[in-house]
């Protein structure tokens, strides 16, 4: 049995993930995922809904994540060509649960997306991760991003990995 997860260890892991995502190092990012990982963005107007009964923005299982990465790295993914420049700040990280080899971490994010020399989008919200203990670090079993704006509105789309 390992000792309780520390916030510093969780933050180190999440900051590393953020760096990979911001820099489109998505093949490396995929190595941070468990084989049954999932990635969710619920709709702005139903943040606590289930993807089985509510229309989400993104509800990817592991295979869909693999396909999403293939898609967004393809130069024919017009929504991300040329690639947006991304910068995300994570904060307010807390450990909500810790046991049986899994850690649930919550926090807030601000992600800036610069698009085609002209548009800046500010994606603001909170996150909830279910991390699987993996040696001294973690793997991501589930990542759920909650957008705080009432609607996606001027952000247009979520064509990068938020």
């Amino acid at each position, binding site marked *: 049995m390992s000792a309780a997860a520390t916030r510093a260890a969780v933050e180190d892991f999440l900051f590393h993930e953020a760096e990979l995502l911001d820099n489109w190092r998505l093949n490396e990012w995929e190595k941070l995922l468990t084989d049954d990982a999932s990635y969710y963005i*619920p*709709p702005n107007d139903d943040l606590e809904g289930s*993807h089985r009964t509510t229309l*989400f*923005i993104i509800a990817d299982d592991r295979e869909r994540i693999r396909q999403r990465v293939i*898609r967004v790295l393809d130069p024919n993914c*017009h929504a991300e060509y040329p690639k947006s420049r991304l910068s995300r700040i994570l904060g307010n990280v807390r450990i909500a649960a810790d046991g049986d080899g899994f850690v649930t971490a919550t926090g807030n994010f601000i992600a800036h997306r610069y698009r085609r020399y002209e548009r800046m989008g500010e994606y603001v919200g909170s996150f909830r991760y279910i991390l699987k203990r993996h040696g001294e670090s973690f793997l991501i079993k589930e990542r759920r991003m909650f957008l705080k704006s009432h609607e996606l509105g001027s952000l*247009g789309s*979520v064509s990068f990995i938020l």
Partner: protein
Amino acid sequence: MTASRSYVIDDREKGLFLLDRSVHVSEDILREEMEKIFSKCWIYAGHASELKKNGDFVTRKVAGRPIIFSRDQKGAIHCLFNTCRHRGAIVCADRTGNARRFMCAYHGWSYNNDGALARVPGEDAYPEAFDKSTLGLKRPAKFESYRGFWFLNLDPHAVPLLEYLGKTTDYIDLVIDQSPSGEMEILPGTQEYDVNANWKLMVENSVDDYHLPTTHSTWLNFMRNSGVVMEPPKEKGMVLPTKGYAIDLGAGHFTTDNINFRGRPVAKWIPLYGEAARPEMDAIRAELMERLGPERAARVCDTNRNLVIFPNLVINDGSSVTVRTFYPEGVDKMHVTAWALGPVEESESARARRLDAFLTFYGPGGFATPDDVEALEMVQKGLANWQDDRWSEMSRGMGREGSEQLNSDEFHLRLFWRKWNEMMGGAA
């Protein structure tokens, strides 16, 4: 006002159709559209299933007008202008909810959910002529429905909705036939996003199958990776693995009607859905065959259709069913609202499959829609040269009009532009 002239060059002898690009950039034209299109046509306001219980309401903007779409205590559905008769404030600030009354936050006038003015604080200060019965919330000139789809019309002289919808009802019925009880519902979760492009570009994009191989090559790749077999186009003019048609439904309405290759959660299995889905999908198909007969059931299961109800309602019965509407917020910006639609009695697993299939293509995180948005924004950017490069070339498939028109032709796009040009007072 713009002078009377045509926005299209429509030369059927030569087979030439050109569109004046000013339609996407002119502020004057946008003002005229609000008057001649959005104040004259039947405009989609909401679906009855959004108001399940008495007292349920939804507020939204329709054709630029803030409305309350509400079900009163007796179950009747209303469309009320969300504007206080006193000094003009909106009387309901919630997006959705359940309420018997809407109270204006400014001076406290309250209205019943059928629109009647119920209470005015300090009523004794008003003169005798003050008559509450004449001060209910105003409403659009007309408000009618077809099988759960509610439309408003701001023109008191408008033809009845059913007459306006004309042949589109056949295609609405085909969507609703998915449901054994004939009842579909809007599912929770709304997708609302802006596109920095003229609203009419979304009409074109919603039915234009010519763009699929290029705009959506990553989606086609994803389908292939997921085990969907896609043969190369077999006939001249085709760009997709199966044949599809563009169909004129009259009065500016039109649809595509395609033999399906991309799977349908009702009830055409593709490997993407997984082996485990097969028995239930077979059972759904069997129910459809039993209920509708083999021919109609095949239409429901094995064809997909993108329907445009003029001017701005799209019902895509494709990878899933989406109801989509959009309004101009300036010449180069539109606001899009999209919902998923499903049979009310659907099982939990079929519902989950429907929602998952939706996300394979549609929506702001889907594998295709973000690229559509990008394409439309690229058009709007390119149109900045409109004064020196005036006309869009839209003649694809011309010369064969009157016979079979393919989904990848521009026949249906021309139908839209002819109707739009006529309503805007452009010469024929």
